[in-house]
């Protein structure tokens, strides 16, 4: 399905609204001011994303993932490089980068909550324009190579992927992460048709 520039703009807007809401929440919850920007939103097929992210293939990533199901199926995730994930946790917890088996839990808990807030903002924003309720599975935390994380959840290489790069700046530390939403076949078309309804002049 062809995507018009208007639809892309609306998608970007939806993501930005969701992220904005999350940041508002994080800023109030944490002691620090968090600046979060979404410089780029792209729509790709799962295949295209695999090709694009091959350069990241060897890098360890950390992801907070949340599946959604029902008629509108897919997975949303906030993906960090391990370095960014450690930096984020250490900034939030006032310490140096943390390592070690027990400390995984410390990282995981914190990342899970931050990821949860960001994803809830984004998914809430998308959910608002859907006419039906989305069923969510509990957020999980995973680590591994990019293709083994979010993309492995896509059941078809034809699945559509929304990739939004995000830049957090917390206490002058820049943390980069990607919001990745994998829409199973059909789900993205549903979203686009709903968006189209919001753009009466588009046709």
């Amino acid at each position, binding site marked *: 399905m062809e995507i018009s520039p208007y639809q892309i703009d609306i998608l970007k807007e939806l993501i930005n609204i969701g992220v904005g809401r999350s940041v508002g929440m994080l800023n109030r919850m944490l002691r620090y001011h968090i600046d979060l920007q979404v410089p780029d939103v792209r729509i790709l097929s799962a295949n295209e994303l695999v090709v694009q992210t091959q350069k990241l293939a060897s890098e360890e990533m950390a992801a907070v993932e949340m599946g959604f199901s029902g008629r509108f199926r897919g997975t949303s995730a906030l993906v960090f490089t391990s370095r960014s994930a450690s930096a984020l946790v250490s900034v939030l917890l006032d310490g140096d980068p943390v390592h070690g088996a027990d400390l995984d839990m*410390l990282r995981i808990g914190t990342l899970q909550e931050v990821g949860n807030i960001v994803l809830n903002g984004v998914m809430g924003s998308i959910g608002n324009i859907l006419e039906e309720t989305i069923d969510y599975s*509990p957020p999980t935390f995973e680590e591994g190579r990019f293709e083994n994380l979010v993309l492995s959840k896509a059941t078809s290489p034809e699945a559509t992927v929304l990739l939004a790069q995000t830049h957090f700046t917390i206490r002058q530390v820049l943390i980069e992460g990607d919001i990745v939403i994998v829409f199973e076949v059909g789900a993205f078309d549903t979203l686009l048709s709903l968006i189209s309804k919001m753009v009466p002049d588009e046709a």
Partner: protein
Amino acid sequence: MDEQAYVESKFGILDHVPIGIFVLRKDYTILFWNRCLEQWTKIARDAIVGRNFDDCFSTLQKPLLRIRLESVFEGGPPTIFSSQLHAYLLPVTTRAGKIRFQHTIVSAVRSADQSSFYALFSVQDVTDLTHRIQDYLKMRDQASAELEERIKAESRLQQQKQVLTGLLESLTARIALLDSSGVIVDCNRAWTEFARENVINQMEVGSNYLACLKATVADPVLGQNLVEGLTAVLEGHLARYEEEYPFRTGSGENWYIMSVTPLVDGLGGGVVSHIDITTRKQAEKKIEHLALHDTLTGIPNRLLFSDRCSQALARAKRYGKSVALLYADLDDFKTINDRYGHSAGDTVLRTVARRLALCVRESDTVARLGGDEFVLLLADITDTQDASRVARKVVHSMARAIKFEGNPIQAKISIGISIYPKDGNSMLPLLNAADAAMYRVKAGGKNRYQFYSEP
């Protein structure tokens, strides 16, 4: 099915999981409270179900939590409250009385009538883990504080070292640090430059300085002294060792003082310094020379003569030898002074001193006792002939006129000779005897010599 029956049928199975689970209606009424929570809170399900959560606990009243929970009640995505950012949602303690840290996930579940959503709280106890992490963090903070302190101390030390290095580099003294075996560990610029200028390779860092001294000090006695002194300090037997020594450099003979002090008491190793004392030595020599020599003629004065005389007599006594004293007095010196002036007199005295010195062996002494009086000390003579030979040479050496501003001045000399041991046992009687003999010459016509013992 009424709400309570629905809840029990739907969530009853959650009594069997080791996770605290409770369910809230949108109005915060507690609908379900599992066994695990009964144990943690000591509140029975019957006692709490149906009550408003806010009446039992105050923890969910924070607006920020409320906002996030609202979206769950609207069927939104699950919400996580981590132990790291919130510590706990239920204020309960462990059996040991410690606060129970909790990781809570709140999910939306359909209400009994399917028209709205309940919030299902699943609370995971992460107390042990959190304490382990806290202990670790405490340890890490301590370690990091200690590290910081050590870094500061090292930085202070570094600064002190820089000051010290700057100081050492600016000194002209050659300074090196030796380990307990004498190997050069560090040295200053003056040390390196000295080694380079004098092409001494063994003075480099890493070389053994004891070996260097053995190889480079020409005087074997001095070399042995330096090595022994240095070793004694390095081995802790001596608190300080100093030795003054001459060293021939490109610019002539210089004098140095080598000092060795232990580096740290008892640990071995030491600091060696060489300070150039050439100027001091030269001054000392000058002072010594001034004290023992006649300023006008440069030959020994009465003081040095006395010393040499005593030594010569002692030696003669020991080896059964003879010593001759030749007491020489210029004839009519007053007339020269009166006629040509005092400068002329001085010139005559200097010339006479020089001519006298040429008449004796190097081991003999020519001294000026004062005025126009000289004495020649001939040590270790075997025969009085030796003395008369010198006396003849002296009288003869005066035959040539002394030039002063174009004028020839004829100096003449009268000599009285005394012989040890024949004419006296010590310096004074011998001097008196020679003096008396000299007066006899003066009375008898001057410009010749006479032995005291001669009639």
